[in-house]
C-alpha cells in the first residue's frame, strides 16, 4: 500500500479514521501536558500514575463483571489519583526522596493490579478476555465516543493552559517566588497534576499501562531540543505527539501483527533521537560542529597574533619572513596558513610570508573583537 492509498483509506475507512484521529489527539494532549511534567522534573510521575491505574481497571471489572471502557476509565482515574496523592503524601510526611516514593507506589499498585488480573482470568466468566490488553494497549478497540472524550478533555486542558499560562509558567520556573507573589501554588500544582493524570488515563486503552509514560515524555523531550521558548515547546510537543500517533497508526495498520501502542511509542522515540542529534541549538551534531569551528578559529587567531608580534617589530609591516620561523610555534599548519591567505591577511611567496595591512589591523584588534563578541 503506498502512502496515497493509505491516506485515501484513512478518509474512507471508519475504523481506521477513528483510530488515527484518536491516537493523534492523544499524542497532542500528552505532548502538551508532558512538557509540564518534564520541566517540573516529574518525568517518573507519569510512569507511576499509569501503573497505579491498573488496579482501578481490574476493580472496575470485578464490580460490573463486564467490559465497559467508561467504567474502566473511571476506575483507572480513581486509582491513578489515589496513587498520585499517596506519592505526594509520602514525600511530604516522611524523609523518603521522591524517586523512592514513586518507585514504591508504582510497584505496589502495579503488583496489586497484576494480582487482580490473574485472579480475573481464572474466573468462570467469558467477558474477561482482552482485559490484559490494557497492559500494552489496543488501539483497535477505540470507539468514536472514546475519541470524542479525548477531544473534549484536550479542549478543556487547552482552555485551562491558556487561562493560567502565566501562573503555570511561574510555578514551573520558581515555585517559592510564585508563593510570595500571592498565588496559590497548591491549587496550581493540583490543577496541572490532575490534568496529567487524566491524559494518562485516557491513553491507557490505546498505549497501555507499561508504555504510557513514554507518550508523555518523548514528545516533550524532543520539543525541548528545538526551542528556548516555553509556548513554542508546548506547541511543538503537541505536534510531535500528534504525528507520533498518526505515523504509528499508519505503520501498524499497513503491516500485519504490529501492535499500535508500541509502534506509536517507537515513532515518538525516533523524534527524540532525531532531535537530540540534529536540533540546531542543542543537538549533538551542531554542537560538535560549533566546537570544531571554534577550535579552528582559535588556532587561526593564535597563528595570526604570533605573526603580528613578529611583524610589529619591523618598520614595514609587510616585510617578508621565512615560513620556517613559524615552525617553532605549536599549532601552525599549511592549512591554517592557506586560510589566512584566503582571508587576505597574509601573502605567501615561496617559502616566505608577509603580513598585509588588513591582516595587521585584524590582528591588532583581535583581542577587542573577542570582547565585542562576548558582549553581543
Amino acid at each position, binding site marked *: 500500500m503506498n502512502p496515497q492509498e493509505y491516506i485515501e483509506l484513512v478518509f474512507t475507512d471508519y475504523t481506521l479514521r477513528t483510530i488515527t484521529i484518536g491516537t493523534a489527539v492523544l499524542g497532542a494532549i500528552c505532548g502538551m501536558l508532558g512538557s509540564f511534567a518534564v520541566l517540573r522534573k516529574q518525568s517518573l510521575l507519569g510512569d507511576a500514575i499509569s501503573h497505579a491505574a491498573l488496579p482501578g481497571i481490574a476493580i472496575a471489572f470485578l464490580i460490573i463483571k463486564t467490559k465497559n471502557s467508561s467504567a474502566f476509565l473511571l476506575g483507572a482515574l480513581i486509582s491513578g489519583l489515589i496513587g498520585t496523592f499517596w506519592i505526594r503524601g509520602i514525600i511530604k510526611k516522611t524523609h523518603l526522596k521522591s524517586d523512592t516514593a514513586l518507585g514504591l507506589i508504582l510497584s505496589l499498585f502495579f503488583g496489586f493490579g497484576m494480582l487482580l488480573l490473574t485472579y480475573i482470568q481464572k474466573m468462570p466468566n467469558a467477558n474477561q478476555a482482552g482485559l490484559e490488553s490494557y497492559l500494552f494497549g489496543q488501539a483497535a478497540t477505540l470507539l468514536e465516543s472514546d475519541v470524542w472524550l479525548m477531544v473534549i478533555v484536550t479542549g478543556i486542558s487547552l482552555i485551562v493552559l491558556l487561562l493560567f499560562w502565566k501562573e503555570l509558567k511561574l510555578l514551573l520556573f520558581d515555585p*517559592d517566588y510564585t508563593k*510570595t507573589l*500571592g*498565588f496559590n501554588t497548591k491549587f496550581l500544582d493540583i490543577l496541572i497534576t490532575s490534568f496529567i493524570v487524566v491524559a494518562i488515563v485516557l491513553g491507557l486503552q490505546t498505549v497501555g499501562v507499561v508504555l504510557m509514560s513514554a507518550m508523555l515524555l518523548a514528545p516533550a523531550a524532543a520539543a*525541548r531540543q528545538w526551542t*528556548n*521558548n516555553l509556548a513554542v515547546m508546548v506547541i511543538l510537543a503537541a505536534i510531535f505527539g500528534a504525528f507520533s500517533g498518526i505515523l504509528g497508526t499508519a505503520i501498524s495498520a499497513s503491516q500485519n501483527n504490529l501492535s499500535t501502542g508500541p509502534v506509536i511509542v517507537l515513532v515518538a522515540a525516533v523524534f527524540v533521537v532525531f532531535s537530540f542529534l540534529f536540533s540546531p541549538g542543542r543537538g549533538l551534531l551542531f554542537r560538535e560542529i560549533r566546537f570544531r569551528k571554534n577550535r579552528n578559529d582559535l588556532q587561526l587567531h593564535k597563528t595570526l597574533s604570533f605573526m603580528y608580534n613578529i611583524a610589529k617589530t619591523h618598520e614595514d609591516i609587510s616585510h617578508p619572513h621565512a615560513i620556517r620561523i613559524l615552525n617553532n610555534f605549536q599549532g601552525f599548519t599549511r592549512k591554517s596558513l592557506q586560510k589566512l591567505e584566503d582571508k587576505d591577511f597574509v601573502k605567501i611567496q615561496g617559502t616566505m610570508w608577509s603580513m598585509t595591512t588588513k591582516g595587521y589591523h585584524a590582528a591588532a584588534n583581535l583581542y577587542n573583537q573577542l570582547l565585542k563578541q562576548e558582549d553581543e
Partner: protein
Amino acid sequence: MTSKEKIAVQIDDLTVAYNYKPVLWDIDLAIPEGVLMAIVGPNGAGKSTLIKSILDIIKPIAGSIQIYGKAYKTQRSLVAYVPQKGSVDWDFPTTALDVVMMGTYGSLGWIKRPGQKQKKAALEALEKVGMLAFKNRQISQLSGGQQQRIFLARALVQNASIYFMDEPFQGVDATTEKAIINILKELRKAGKTVIVVHHDLQTVPEYFDWVTFLNVKKIATGPVKDIFNDDNLTKTYGINYKVAVSQ
C-alpha cells in the same frame, strides 16, 4: 536614615523546625524602616529559613510576623524577594526579559496577562541592573553574575517597600558585586528597607548599616557601628573570631 522609630518587620517568638530539629529558636526581631541590613551567621544558622518564614514559604511552628503592623498575607505587595540563584533551573526555556516580567505578575493577579506597561517596567529594571542588552538572551546562556542581576531586576519591578535577598553576592564577580551593592544603597536612599543574607564578614561594615547575628537563636541586632564586634562574632560563630573590624 529617616524615622528610625517606624518598624518595617516585626517578628515575635518565631520558632521553626524541620523534623523536630529546631532551625530557628524563639526569635524576636524588629527591623526598622529604611535600613540596609545583613543577616550573618554560620552555615545552618537558619538565615535563609528566617527569610522564608517571613515570606510564608515555610510554616513556622510558633510565632507571629508582621509587616508594617499587619499580617504578611495582606501586605504582600509591599514585599519583594530575591531567592538564592541556585534555587531554580536556569535551563528553563525562557528569556531574561521574561524572567524580569515575572516580577509584575503579583500586581496583575490571576489570569490577567502582562501588557505594554509591564514590559516597560521590566525593561527599565533591566536597564537599572545593566542588563538591557541581554534582554532576549536565553537565561542558560547568562553568566552567574548576570543571572543574579536578572533576579535583582525581577524584584525591582515589584516596586516594593521591603526587599529580602538570599545571598545575592554568592558566586558573582567583583564588578557585579559592586553593581549590586550600589543598587541596594540606592534602594535605601529611596527609603526602602533591604534585608540581605550575607556571608562575607569582611564587607559588612562597608556595605551595611544594620546587622543581625543569627545562629538558631538571635545573638544580636542593631547598627553595624555599635554591635559588629569580636564579641558578637565569637558568640555567633563559636570560635574566637578576630575579624577585620579594622576601623
